[in-house]
């Protein structure tokens, strides 16, 4: 609880600095075709109540049967979080009445979760990093959805989500500011997307967070926490924490005390408001679900899943750094999203000389491709430039056939019109001029035409850049810039 604090942001109050203590419960929808305890489909966006089995509707006499795929997904996620996998876990009933909860209880795991303690490492701006401990991960059922806008007097219930498997991932109160909180959610999302255990689609509700926030004087005893429920955007999580921390600090500094309660974040107003107090909290009357035997599996089952795990973002990142000399920052950018990393890997695969051009390829993916995609608000899946085309462009630069500048023009052509970059270079005469004789003539012409600049360059060697520019312009950008540079330097005697 009181582990040495990683570098983090403190909040200035009237009475000095305050530290924010944050713990999170992430609800991640398990990627599976069927629900946790029934065979009904988990597809998003069906007609209301079109994906509902007799079990999901809690018809009399219906019994839950565990979906093994969901168990595998939870174990895989646990392995991705470097967590202890519990070979025996127990499903409990969490009892409460609500119209979106057909059974009158949610099947969850209370005292014996499927996954125990683990940890994730977060990278923060400026090369800082912090490790956040995971308390547990357990499997549970999602509830249905209430539709209040279908009738002026009635509320309708859609049970399509009812019984869909969720993983609740509970962190220890190790998070210390909004930036870390955002990085934590982003990192968990990334790990699960690599694993294919949760699609991480926050807009569709596949990933939701409950955020517990309290404040204290740095190093002091923990304060009373408030829980902000059901956050479905990383940015809102950041805003809610900032607001909630300041709200609590103001109350305490004004001589008040924090009441433990559940709050909701209003993104329009940017503030949190009270939902229910501790006194109104439910008594869930947890007890082991007698319809289900304890969930037991062997270490061999776990080992087999472990052996088939994909490479996770942290491992991929270090491979990019050591294998291709990428900067830590660039590697982080590439691995943050599974799709980006996969695109970069595809570009690497297409390269003639990975060792030589791997880093160049990273620059092109990050700066040219991502830059352009961002500008057009497009995602990588809809990129007009394929990995194969980008590999070809990088190859052309790496082997010296075209200059970086020409490559940008080529990229633009491929983006707009498509086509094989190598063929385009041939067809449009974009090949770089490496014929020294030809370049020398252009260099000589320019030196002859600009005696004043020559004099100035002798005094101020940086002016060579002006000459390079002139030569490049005159050659239509096709001269090899390195050759031009070398020639100019020797001719100008600098």
């Amino acid at each position, binding site marked *: 609880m009181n582990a040495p604090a990683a570098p983090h942001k403190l909040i200035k109050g009237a009475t000095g600095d305050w530290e924010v203590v944050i713990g999170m419960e992430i609800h991640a929808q398990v990627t599976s075709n069927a629900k946790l305890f029934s065979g009904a489909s988990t597809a998003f966006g069906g007609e209301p109540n079109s994906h509902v089995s007799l079990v999901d509707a809690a018809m009399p006499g219906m019994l839950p*049967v565990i979906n093994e795929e969901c168990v595998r997904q939870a174990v895989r996620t646990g392995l991705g979080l470097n967590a202890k996998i519990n070979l025996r876990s127990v499903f409990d009933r969490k009892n409460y009445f609500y119209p979106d909860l057909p059974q*009158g209880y949610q099947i969850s795991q209370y005292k014996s979760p499927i996954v125990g303690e683990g940890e994730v490492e977060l990278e923060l701006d400026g090369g800082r990093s912090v490790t956040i401990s995971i308390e547990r991960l357990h499997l549970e059922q999602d509830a249905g959805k209430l539709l209040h806008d279908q009738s002026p007097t009635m509320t309708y219930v859609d049970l399509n989500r009812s019984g869909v498997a969720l993983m609740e991932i509970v962190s220890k109160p190790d998070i210390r500011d909004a930036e870390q909180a955002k990085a934590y959610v982003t990192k968990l999302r990334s790990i699960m997307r690599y694993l294919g255990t949760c699609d991480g689609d926050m807009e569709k509700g596949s990933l939701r967070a409950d955020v517990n926030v309290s404040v204290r004087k740095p190093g002091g005893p923990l304060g009373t926490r408030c829980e902000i429920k059901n956050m479905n955007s990383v940015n809102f999580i950041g805003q809610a924490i900032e607001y909630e921390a300041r709200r609590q600090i103001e109350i305490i500094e004004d001589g008040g005390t924090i009441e433990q309660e559940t709050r909701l974040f209003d993104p329009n107003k940017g503030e949190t408001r009270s939902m229910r107090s501790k006194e109104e909290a439910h*008594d869930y009357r947890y007890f082991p679900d*007698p319809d289900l035997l304890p969930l037991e599996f062997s270490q061999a089952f776990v080992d087999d899943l472990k052996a088939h795990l994909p490479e996770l973002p942290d491992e991929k990142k270090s491979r990019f750094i050591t294998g291709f000399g990428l900067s830590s920052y660039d590697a982080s950018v590439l691995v943050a999203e599974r799709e980006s990393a996969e695109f970069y890997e595809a570009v690497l695969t297409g390269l003639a000389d990975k060792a030589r051009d791997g880093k160049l390829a990273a620059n092109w993916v990050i700066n040219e491709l991502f830059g352009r995609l961002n500008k057009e608000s497009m995602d990588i899946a809809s990129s007009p430039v394929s990995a194969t085309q980008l590999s070809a462009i990088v190859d052309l630069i790496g082997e010296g056939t075209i200059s970086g500048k020409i490559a940008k023009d080529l990229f633009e052509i491929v983006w707009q019109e498509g086509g094989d970059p190598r063929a385009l270079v041939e067809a449009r005469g974009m090949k770089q001029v490496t014929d020294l004789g030809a370049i020398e003539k252009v260099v000589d012409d320019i030196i002859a035409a600009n005696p004043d600049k020559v004099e100035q360059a002798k005094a101020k060697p940086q002016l060579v850049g002006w000459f390079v520019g002139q030569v490049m312009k005159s050659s239509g950008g096709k001269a090899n810039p390195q050759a031009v540079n070398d020639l100019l330097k020797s001719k100008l005697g600098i």
Partner: protein
Amino acid sequence: MTDLTSLTIAEARAGLASKSFTASELTDAHLAAIEAARVLNAYVLETPDRAREMARAADEKIAKGEGGPLAGIPLGIKDLFATRDIRTTACSKILGNFIPPYESTVTTQLWRDGAVLLGKLNNDEFAMGSSNETSCFGPVTNPWRRDGSNTTLVPGGSSGGSASAVAAQLCMGATATDTGGSIRQPAAFTATVGIKPTYGRCSRWGIVAFASSLDQAGPIARSVRDAAILMRSMAGHDPKDTTSVDIAVPDYEASIGKSVKGMKIGIPKEYRLDGMPAEIEKLWSEGADWLKAAGAELVEVSLPHTKYALPAYYIVAPAEASSNLARYDGVRYGLREGAKNIIEMYEDTRAEGFGAEVRRRVLIGTYVLSAGYYDAYYLRAQKVRTLIKKDFEDCFAKGVNAILTPATPSAAFGIGEKGADPVEMYLNDIFTVTVNMAGLPGIAVPAGKDSQGLPLGLQLIGRAFDEETLFSLGDVIEQAAGRFTPAKWW
């Protein structure tokens, strides 16, 4: 034709095979008997059209030589079993006119084997009761009466409709369920044979749940052999019920008539209650003598935690029930009352839909699971349950094959006689609840009558998944005691 209803299943099977009568004739005879016996209130729904249709189909199959093990045998089904397109209510107002679009696994297997559905049988609401007086359809009358008396007696519960219908020859056999004695106690009160199999032997899928860790389906029939025949069709692994066990179903009927020579029969000293009627005591030792005469060895055994079984049961069962019955909330099916707002809807629906006994148990169950009470009640009761299980394990580990006890502490009592004090009613299950707590099989077999001419039963408790031994021993008792039929007064 009426004498067709007095046949056992085994006899009817032979008659159908030899073409002495048809399945349709057999079914019609029962439908007529049901109609003439409505005063017993055993059936809450008669399904004559379905019955005749199924009987016709059975006749066709029998003619082609394709009849299953129960071809043409007319049965009654406890209203706790979901029957597709046929109203299923658990005898609770809260289910109203609920018509399930599905069929329970147990009944599916009965129809697979050719049985005929006569209708749905009365029971205590959600199987909570020991007299069938808590049914929203009103109490069931026991076909048995005290000698020279017109007093209406209860058939026991919760499977009172099943026991009454079988005893009064309104069906050849019936399905029932047993959570704390709901098969064995009514069987004992009506001179029928009832077996609660090992927990996990029959699928619970499609049976309205009372207490999931205790509920188990089983048959009530007029002979041990008939119970064995029905068990074979009802039992079996079901992937839709995780607690059902994947063990092959034996030919239970083959156990009938098997020698019990050399079997060790335990007589538990803790079942000898203070103030136990002499008649029960006498019945018990008579039963022991019969088994001894058949070559079994009697040994006194100790089940030291027996006295804690009933209190622990009345914590575990209501706890599970309080959660199992949460789904009856007026939102999706069944009764809905007070739709002004959601809280009012819950409160009014459940207050109106549940009877007093169900409300009592839901309240007890909610209480014992509450924060601050869980450890003192629920957790403790589960520990007691473990000790009760261990009592039996220790006993069986010493080579005991089965345990002989009385089935009930008394014979059937009058309607309304035991309503005032719920604990008095709960004491009916004193000999039977331990068996549910331990998940073991138990059979109740008629063994004699009391001084007023009412039937009394003995219970045999077996090792897990050893129903066969119970059938063999039960048959010995039946051979010695004979079978009992109530005089028809209705």
